[in-house]
């Protein structure tokens, strides 16, 4: 049972890290749009204004 003294705090620490990481990701907007970023690579870049010839 003595290893519980070590394992339980480690577990709690990991859970704490997981919650912190999730909050950080959610606040950063990672989960705001789960559909369109997947399609982004398939779309053309926005047309940029052509540089005037020098």
């Amino acid at each position, binding site marked *: 049972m003595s290893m*519980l003294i070590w394992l339980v705090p480690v577990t709690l620490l990991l*859970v704490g890290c997981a919650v912190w990481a*999730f909050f950080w990701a*959610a606040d950063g907007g990672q*989960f705001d749009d789960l559909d369109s970023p997947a399609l982004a690579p398939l779309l053309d870049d926005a047309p940029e204004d052509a540089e005037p010839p020098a």
Partner: protein
Amino acid sequence: MDSTLDRCFHCGEPAGAGAPRTGDRAFCCSGCEAAAAWIESAGLAGYYRARRTAAPLPEPPAAAALARWDEPAFLDAHARAEDGQLAATFVVEGVRCAACAWLIERALAREPGVATATVNAATSRLALRWDPALVPLSQLVARLAGLGYRVHLPSREDARAAALERRDSLKRLAVAGLGAMQAMMFSEALYFGTDELSPATRDFFRWLTLLVSTPVVFYAGAPFLRGAMMQLRLRAPGMDLLVGASVLLAWGASLAATLLRAEAVYFDAAVMFVFFLLAARHIESEARRRATAALEVLARAQPATALRVGADGAESAVAVEAVEPGDRLRVRAGEAVPVDGRLESEAAELDESVLTGESQAVMHASGELVLAGSVALSRPVQIVADRRAGQSTVALLAELAARASASRPRAARLADRVAGRFVVAMLFAAAAVGVFWAGVDAPRALPATLAVLAATCPCALALAVPAAIASAQAAFARLGALVLDPDAVESLARADTVLFDKTGTLTTGRPQLDELQVFAGSRDEALAAAAALERGVHHPLSALFRPYDDGRIASAVECFAGAGVEGLVGGERRRIGKRAFATGVAGDDDGIWLGDGARAIARFASAEALRPGAGEAVAGLTAQGLRLALLSGDSAPRVAALAARLGIGDWRGRATPAEKLARIRELQSGGRRVAMVGDGVNDAAVLAGADAGIAIAEGAALAQSRASVVLASPGLGRLPALFATARRTRRVMRQNLAWAAAYNLAALPLAAAGLVPPWAAALGMTASSLLVTLNALRLARPAGVPA
């Protein structure tokens, strides 16, 4: 309460020494005093009892800012006329809880001229309908400002608030999930290790479980606890009260057991309850978000600025609200058309998918109407504005949709009421079970009470209908149909008779060559001659022959008003027009005659072009066993011809709107459920009289639309799918309600008998909610896919 002496009774700001007072109430300013006095005198003091936070500080707006609300241009752009009244949706700043919504609704309802005012506390939206002749909008805005609520037009800020709310919900879900996993793991040790665990280890585990379950209960479960407090204050018991009570009871009893080293703890039941309920609610709100996303697309389809082309050809960017009909606007390739207008440049391809759900690009000829929100695909186009921004089709659709999403269907309201009463009954039942077991077998009293509270929560009952409606909205949006009245789903599902209007509904109102009799020469010769003669003529019917133009020239063309056209085709004299004019023979004048002035060569008859999909719609609806009928104001032979062409047996011509309405009443009194499909303008009253009115969306017609469903796609082909989806939705709603009711009824006696441990009760209840939600999600799949 001392705090009332030095803090403002109304807004909670500190009240200074010389501040106004009424009795023992202090106020920070005369604005708050006036607001409180008005609330008191209007008999609305219940607000102070129910509110959760102090009222916003009243702030009288400047007279100039108020006057803006009454400007005709402003009203024109942001409000719709309905039966002499105006309707619009606003965002109210300062709505913090249901009590605010209640106060605003009551306050506005007391103003003369306000027909309806409903506030959604969750979205801070106010749907207002008022008579501008009786009360100017500025007076209503000032009334709310006097209470501390500022009124805005809906803006993109709302989307941000929704995103924040969603992040919040996800974070709660994560905490609940991770916390619940840990708590259940530790509980496992407690359950199965009871014999081997020393009391010290057992207590160690209990404290650990307490540590991980407390954030789950008080952070993740905060929405339930807040809801429960609100329901207590408003004396409106609901689900949150039951959930909050059982979670708090389980957590509190376990805390006491941990401190007192008593027999059993129930942290696992508390965390499971919170986690699974949050999951069910999250799934439901995602389904709703998906459904409303389709509507939000409408609201965002119209760009905020337009490129106006001046008389000198220079472009200038102007706010879309400033565009006047007649303005010349340029739309760059890949950009959306800002207002409804006529295409001035040559034919162009436009993507109208936002409006119609149709992904295929539509080719528009020069001069045709293009709708705001459609995207110019391959090249820039120039249009002449036809309507203001607020009167454009997409703006009207978005407005109608916003209004629809604020209302709830009858079935959902009923389920809410039943759930409310059920909650009270369950609270009493739980108390009775507790008292009973305390007398019979004391250690079983707490688990049995917890099980009754958890197992019988009518969450599934309350979710059954809204989840189905939200999910069905997405399916309807994909069909290009906008359901404006949530009760329409029920009416559509029950309809057994579908009445069609003719012109503008089954037909486009544009002519098409239908019949051709040739008396001399070949068919092609006749058509080519007719096309050559009609080429330079501007008459609606001359377009009939354009497809048959083979380029031959008619010379010496001369028009005879009211008779026809004469010219030389291939050196021969040809006349086209009325029979007497073209053939020299008087008599039956139906159709267009081609002749040489003495002899008939051919006779053409025109018919109105069918709206795309009309044939499929009629066939599909007939196959579904619906009775179809045609009601038209047009002449009997034309109606008969169309009915025969489409295979509709029951038709009536020369019907006035009043007669159409009478026919609907007659069918309804015969026990039939009638759905009416019309074009929305002439048929407004008829559509409103039918059980379900389906309008074909076309521009300004929408504004007066009294229909419960608007078809945004120009074709009729999806009508059968619309009816099928409505029936599927009703089926799912019934399944959900039946399951939820059966589950609650079955679970109660088992839980009361003490046969169900609290964790199993929590699991059963939440599984039932999830089942109902997932069943509703099936509806989001398009009809026709076997489910």
